[in-house]
């Protein structure tokens, strides 16, 4: 069986199988231990201006089987004037028992920082957003919660990371087109290898570095927040009909740079904005050996009227 020949189909239980499901359909979910009130799935969808968005975060099969909570998180929201769709996805690092909270805090702080930075609405300059302040805000928030949780007075960031740390990718997209018909956007991968891809008529195209791209041997090493980092935001323009997907590596690992069967599956499913609940099902496909939490925020730019 080679990659180009396998396709996708529904399992009798309704889930999608992409390629080989392995034994994933037989996994019995057990509740997360010691973490209450954290949903296995969160889901959002809506339309603002010329954009449709869908967002889903799913507890991975590995965590379902072993009683660990979903450690991924996201925020998707709009600025006060509705001119910008703002979002963040974060992947709490599995080693840390409180990493799901680090992921939540990173998304909340980065979204809040973006909303403030984009207060000028259509006039906002994506080149002057204060990402350093965003990172500082995330670091401080995680640090503060660590002190509270561990009941200590002070702690080094390295000690904080042992209990709670996370990757984060934050973005903003203009909900209205500029005069040339394109939508301004900015994406910053602040830690780790969470990624963003764009789907257009040609297929998927990575915007940020693809984890493990070109590497012969697999590796999971990341440099998570809280940490001093110098963000390298990417500004870009989205065209009518483009789809932007901002993802954690639970979806990025099976997807790679988008050229394989998972990329083709999602490109077909996401040719148009799907029903929001079905979107979660599309993100939760079975695929042998890929068991991590999965989070995607997908943004559709309305096609040009025909």
């Amino acid at each position: 069986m080679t990659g180009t020949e396998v396709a996708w189909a529904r399992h009798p239980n309704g889930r999608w199988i992409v390629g080989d499901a392995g034994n994933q359909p037989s996994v019995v979910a057990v509740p997360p231990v010691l973490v209450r009130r954290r949903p296995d799935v969160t889901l959002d969808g809506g339309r603002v201006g010329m954009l449709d968005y869908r967002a889903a975060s799913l507890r991975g099969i590995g965590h379902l089987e072993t009683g660990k909570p979903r450690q991924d998180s996201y925020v998707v929201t709009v600025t006060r004037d509705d001119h910008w769709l703002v979002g963040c996805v974060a992947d709490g690092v599995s080693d840390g028992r409180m990493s799901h909270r680090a992921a939540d805090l990173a998304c909340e702080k980065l979204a809040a920082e973006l909303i403030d930075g984009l207060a000028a609405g259509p006039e906002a300059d994506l080149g002057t957003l204060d990402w350093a302040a965003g990172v500082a805000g995330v670091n401080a928030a995680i640090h503060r919660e660590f002190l509270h949780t561990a009941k200590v007075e002070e702690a080094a960031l390295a000690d904080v990371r042992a209990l709670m740390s996370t990757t984060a990718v934050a973005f903003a997209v203009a909900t209205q087109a500029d005069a040339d018909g394109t939508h301004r956007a900015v994406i910053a991968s602040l830690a780790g290898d969470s990624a963003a891809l764009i789907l257009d008529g040609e297929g998927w195209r990575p915007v940020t570095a693809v984890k493990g791209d070109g590497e012969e041997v697999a590796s999971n090493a990341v440099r998570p927040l809280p940490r001093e980092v110098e963000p390298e935001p990417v500004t870009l323009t989205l065209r009518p009909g483009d789809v932007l997907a901002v993802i954690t590596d639970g979806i990025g690992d099976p997807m790679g740079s988008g050229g394989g069967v998972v990329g083709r599956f999602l490109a077909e499913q996401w040719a148009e904005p799907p029903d929001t609940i079905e979107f979660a099902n599309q993100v939760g496909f079975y695929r042998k050996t890929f068991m991590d939490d999965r989070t995607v925020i997908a943004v559709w730019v309305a096609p040009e009227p025909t």
Partner: protein
Amino acid sequence: MTTSATDTHGDDRLLVLPFYIVVDVSLSMSVPQGGDKSAIQAANEILPTVIDGIEASPTLGDVVRLGAVDFSDDARVVLRLDDVRNVNPIPQFTVRGATSYAAAFRLLRQEIEKDYAQLRGDNYKAYRPAVFFITDGEPTDDQSDIVAAYNDLTDPSFKLRPNLIPFGVGTATKDQLDQWVYPKEGSKKPMRSYVMRDGADPAKAITKVAEILLSSVIASAQSVSEQGSAGGFVLDDEDLDSDWN
């Protein structure tokens, strides 16, 4: 975007985590040391125990690949790296002759290269392997020969260099075995050796190897699909009792 056939192939790769069990089958391993069982009898229970454990979880078998090598005067492949659900019957270790660590290290490098080429061909992306190396000490080859073979196996330019975890029973000492650990103390994710404490029964101690191996398999399989600093293999000896130092 246009993608070449190879790009597409690369994006479709599944993840696997290879483990190798390497067992000293020198004659001394067949002599019971106080208990009813010899070390080699105990070593022969490792594969069935680990395979049973992997099969007890729906998803472990999807990710884990297990291989086994023995060594005496020479080294031989006992179980070619495989999905444990394909292993039938489970092969046995049988004693013969002397104790060449160099032969074991050299065969390991060969097998790892061969197995990873096969995995790539089968469209898998593999993490670096972990090697559980069980010996009763007293290698019979030249120290310089062992060092050369070890250096070749763990050469930083060898992308598939394994995590190497020696387990010593019988006359093996901590000093002797620590030199065959990889990566060593001081590296980012150091491994360690385990040496049976004086007076413990080697057969009983080896039974514990299966437990450490299985819990490491489980911890590693978790990490394979998750963000973490561990990068694949995770050594898990939380339940280790006092038979080992």
